[in-house]
C-alpha cells in the first residue's frame, strides 16, 4: 500500500532559513527616535520639504497617542532601542549580477533568482530598510504600469505620489501608522493605468536582517478605473535573539470597476512584533481582496480593512493564522460600508498549538444610508492541544436599512473521526494531523499562486513537526 510521501522540510531549516549574513551597512542611523533622526532620514533620502514636514508632524502624533490597551501586550517594545533607518548599499542595482555578493547569497537561499527566471514580472526585494534590488519587466513599462520602491516613486512621480500618500491612512489614524509615517522607508509603489490588466503577480520579498532594527515600509497601490493587479508580499526572516519591530502601512485605492488582490504570507521570526495597518478604499463596482496569511512573528496585530465607498463595491478578506509556542496572532479584518449596495465577506481560519494563541478580531460597520448591504463573516479555529487558546471578537454595527449581516464561528480540535479514518489507512498520526490541518486551510492555499501554496504547505508541515506525539 502506498504511503504518503515524506517531505522532510524540518531537518535543514536552520541552514535553509535560519541564516544570517554579517552586517555590512553603508549607513546606519543611531538607535532611538527623535526629530533629529527623522530629519536625518529625510536628508539622507533627499526628500522634498513637504515630506519632512509630514514626518515631523507624524512623530508628534506618535508621541501624543497612547499605546493601544486592547489586543496583545505591547508594553515590552522599547522605542528608544530601535534603529529607524538602515541602508545596505548606496545605490540601487539594476540587474541581479550587480548586487553585492552578501545580499545575493541571502536571496539565493530564498530562491528569488529562480522565481525570477520563471515568471516574475518585477522583483522589488527589500533588504533591510531600503529596496536594493529591483527589476521591472519591460512589458509593464510599456503598458504604463509603475512598479517601483516607494522612495524612488517619491522622487520620480512626485505629483502622483503626493496626491495619494497618506490619504487612505492618515498619520493620526493610529499610533503605529503615525510611527510609520514618521520613519517610513522602502516598500512598494504601484500604479496601474486605466483599463490595464497586469496578468502576472507582482512580488516583493523583504526581510529583516539586523538586530533591533525596525522595518517601516510603506506601500501605496493605485488601481485606476477598470484595471487589475495582484500584488504578493512574502517574507521569511532569520532568527535573532532580541525583539524586533515591524510596522508597515499599506494604502490601496481601487477605482471604478477595478480589482486588486493583495496577498501576504507573513513568516517573520518569532521575536518580531508585527503591527501593520492595511487599508483599501474601493469605489463603484470595484473589488478588493486581501489574502492574508500569518505564520511567524511573536505578536501580530493586523486587520486588513476595506472601505466600500460607492455602490457595487465589494470587499473580501481571507485570513489564515497559525500560532505556535509563544506566539499570539491577533488578526482579522474590517469592512466599512459607507455606500449602499455594497457587499463584503471575511473568512478566517486559525490554528493554535503548543500554547500559541490566535484571536480573530473583526469589525463590520454599516453607516447610515448604506442601505441594502450584505456582509458575512465566518471564523473557524482549530486547537491542536490543550495548552493553546483561541478567541473570537467580532464587532458588528449596523446603522442602515435592509442590511443582511451574518457571523458564524466554530472552535474545535482535530476531529477524532477524521484522524481515525486516515490512520486506519495506514497513515501515521503526525502525518494525518498535518493533512487535516492542510485541508483545514485549503480555502486559503487554493487562492495562492502555486509556488506559494507549496511553500505554505511546507511551512505548515514544518510547524506541525513534533507537535503530536
Amino acid at each position, binding site marked *: 500500500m502506498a504511503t504518503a510521501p515524506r517531505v522532510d522540510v524540518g531537518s535543514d531549516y536552520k541552514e535553509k532559513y535560519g541564516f544570517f549574513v554579517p552586517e555590512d551597512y553603508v549607513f546606519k542611523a543611531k538607535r532611538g527616535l527623535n526629530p533629529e533622526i527623522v530629519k536625518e532620514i529625510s536628508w539622507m533620502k533627499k526628500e522634498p520639504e513637504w515630506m519632512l514636514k509630514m514626518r515631523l508632524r507624524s512623530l508628534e502624533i506618535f508621541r501624543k497617542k497612547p499605546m493601544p490597551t486592547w489586543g496583545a501586550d505591547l508594553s515590552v517594545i522599547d522605542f528608544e532601542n530601535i534603529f529607524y533607518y538602515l541602508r545596505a548599499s548606496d545605490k540601487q542595482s539594476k540587474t541581479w549580477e550587480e548586487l553585492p555578493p552578501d545580499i545575493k547569497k541571502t536571496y539565493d537561499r530564498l530562491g528569488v533568482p529562480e522565481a525570477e527566471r520563471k515568471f516574475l514580472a518585477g522583483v522589488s526585494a527589500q533588504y533591510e530598510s531600503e529596496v536594493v534590488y529591483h527589476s521591472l519587466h519591460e512589458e509593464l513599462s510599456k503598458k504604463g504600469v509603475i512598479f517601483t520602491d516607494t522612495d524612488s516613486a517619491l522622487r520620480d512621480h512626485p505629483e502622483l505620489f503626493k496626491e495619494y500618500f497618506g490619504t487612505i491612512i492618515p498619520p493620526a489614524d493610529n499610533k503605529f501608522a503615525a510611527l510609520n509615517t514618521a520613519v517610513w522607508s522602502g516598500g512598494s509603489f504601484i500604479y496601474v493605468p486605466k483599463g490595464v490588466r497586469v496578468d502576472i503577480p507582482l512580488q516583493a520579498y523583504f526581510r529583516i536582517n539586523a538586530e533591533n532594527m525596525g522595518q517601516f515600509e510603506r506601500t501605496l497601490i493605485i488601481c485606476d478605473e477598470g484595471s487589475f493587479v495582484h500584488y504578493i508580499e512574502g517574507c521569511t526572516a532569520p532568527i535573532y535573539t532580541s525583539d524586533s519591530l515591524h510596522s508597515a502601512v499599506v494604502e490601496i485605492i481601487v477605482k471604478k470597476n477595478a480589482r486588486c488582490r493583495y496577498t501576504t504570507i507573513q513568516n517573520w521570526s518569532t521575536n518580531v512584533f508585527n503591527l501593520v495597518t492595511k487599508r483599501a478604499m474601493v469605489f463603484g463596482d470595484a473589488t478588493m481582496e486581501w489574502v492574508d496569511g500569518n505564520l511567524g512573528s511573536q505578536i501580530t496585530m493586523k486587520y486588513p480593512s476595506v472601505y466600500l465607498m460607492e455602490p457595487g463595491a465589494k470587499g473580501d478578506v481571507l485570513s489564515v493564522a497559525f500560532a505556535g509556542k509563544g506566539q499570539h496572532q491577533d488578526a482579522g479584518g474590517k469592512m466599512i460600508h459607507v455606500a449602499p449596495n455594497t457587499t463584503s465577506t471575511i473568512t478566517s481560519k486559525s490554528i493554535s498549538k503548543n500554547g500559541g494563541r490566535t484571536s480573530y478580531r473583526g469589525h463590520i460597520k454599516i453607516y447610515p444610508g448604506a442601505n441594502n448591504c450584505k456582509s458575512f463573516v465566518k471564523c473557524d479555529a482549530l*486547537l491542536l492541544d*490543550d495548552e493553546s*487558546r483561541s478567541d473570537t471578537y467580532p*464587532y458588528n454595527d449596523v446603522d442602515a436599512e435592509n442590511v*443582511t*449581516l*451574518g*457571523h458564524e*464561528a466554530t*472552535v474545535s480540535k482535530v476531529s477524532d473521526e477524521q484522524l481515525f479514518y486516515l490512520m486506519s489507512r495506514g497513515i501515521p498520526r503526525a502525518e494525518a494531523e498535518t493533512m487535516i490541518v492542510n485541508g483545514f486551510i485549503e480555502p486559503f492555499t487554493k487562492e495562492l499562486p502555486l509556488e506559494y501554496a507549496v511553500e505554505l504547505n511546507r511551512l505548515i508541515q514544518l510547524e506541525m513537526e513534533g507537535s503530536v506525539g
Partner: protein
Amino acid sequence: MAITAATLGRTELQGEPGWLSDRRRAALATYERLPMPSKTDEEWRRTDVSGFDVSAYSELEHREGLKLDAGRLPAGVILKPLREAASENRELVEPRLFSLIGSDRDRFNALHAAFFTGGTFLYVPDGVVIEEPILGRHLSHAGGNFVLPHTLIVAGRGARFHYLDEYIGDDSEESGYRSGSAEIYLGEGSEVGYVSVQKWGRNAWHFADQRAQLQKDSTLRLFDVTLGARFSKTRVEASLVGPGADAELKAIYLASGEQFFDFHTLQDHQVGNTRSDLLFKGALQDVARTVYAGLIKIEKGAARSDAYQANRNLVLSDHAKATSIPMLEIDNNDVRCTHGATVGPIDPQHMFYLRSRGIPEATARRMLVQGFFGDVLDRIPFEHARTLIEAELETRLG
C-alpha cells in the same frame, strides 16, 4: 438631590439586621467611589447612560412591592421576602447574597446592592420537588422613584422547581429607576426553570444582573423576556462549576419606539464535561436600538465542554439598529464551540409567499415575527410562563 448616606438612612429598611445595613453602606461607598461608565469602557461603548440621573429617583416607591404566589409548598421550603429572610434565615442568606453578581462591578451594580428593595428568597431543600411554578410579581405604580427587586434562589441537591419573576409597570408612568437582579444557586443534580419577564413602563431605566452557579449535574433553563423600559441593560451569566452541569440561556426581546436594550451574556465553563446553550432572539421596530455582546469562556482544564451561542435580530423598520458582538475565549482544545449572529430584515421571499396567498401585509408581517420567535418560545420551561409570554407578544405585535 444626590444619593448619599442620608438617603440610605431615610429609606432605612426597618427591621433589617445589622449585617445587611453594613453591606448596604459598603455598597454605597463603592458606588460613590466608582466613576460613571464612559464611552471608553468596552462594555459601555454603545450604551449611553449620560441621560440617567440617579438623584432624580432618590425616593423609594415601596418597601416591598412584591406579590408571591405559590401552591402548597412542601415542608422545608422557604419562600419569603428577602428582607425577612435576611434576619430569619441569616445562615442561608448572608454567605450568598451578592456573592454571585457582586456589588462593585460598576456604579449601577453597587447602587442596586445598596438600595435593593423587595425581592424574594426561595430555598428548596435537598430532594424536594415542587410541581406548581412559584410566581413573584414585582409592581410599580408611579414614576420618579426607585424600585430595585432582588431574587435569591437556592436549590438543594436534586431539587426541582420553576420560578417566574414578573416586573410590571405602567407605560404611562413617568421615568423611574428599576432593576431586577437574580442570583441562582443550583446544587448537585438540581433542575431549575427560571423565567423573568420585564415589562416596566416605557419610561423606566432598568439595570439587571442575573447570574447562576451550576454544581455537578445540575440543569438550568433560563428564559428572559425584555419588553419594557426606555433603557434596559441586562447581564445574563452562568458559571458552570461542576461536571455535567447544563445551562440553557434563552431570551427574546421586542424593542419598539425609542427603546434601547443592551444584553451582555457570559457562559463561563470553569470545568469540563459541561454544556451551555444560548439563544437570544430579538425583533426591532421604529427607531429602537439593541446591543448584544456575549462571551463563551472555556477555562484551561474544561475539556469536553460544549457551548453554543447565537444572537438573531429581525430588523422590521428601516431606522431600527441592532449591534451584535458574539465573542469566544477558548483555552482548551477538546471542546465544541459554535456561535453565530445575524442581523437582517424580513426575508422578502417569505413575505411574497404569504402575500401571494392573499394575506394582508400587516398580518403576514405579524405571522413572520411570530414564526421568528416560535422556535425559542418552545424552550420556555413551563406552561404558565409560556401562556403569559405568548399572550404578551400577541398584544404587543397587535
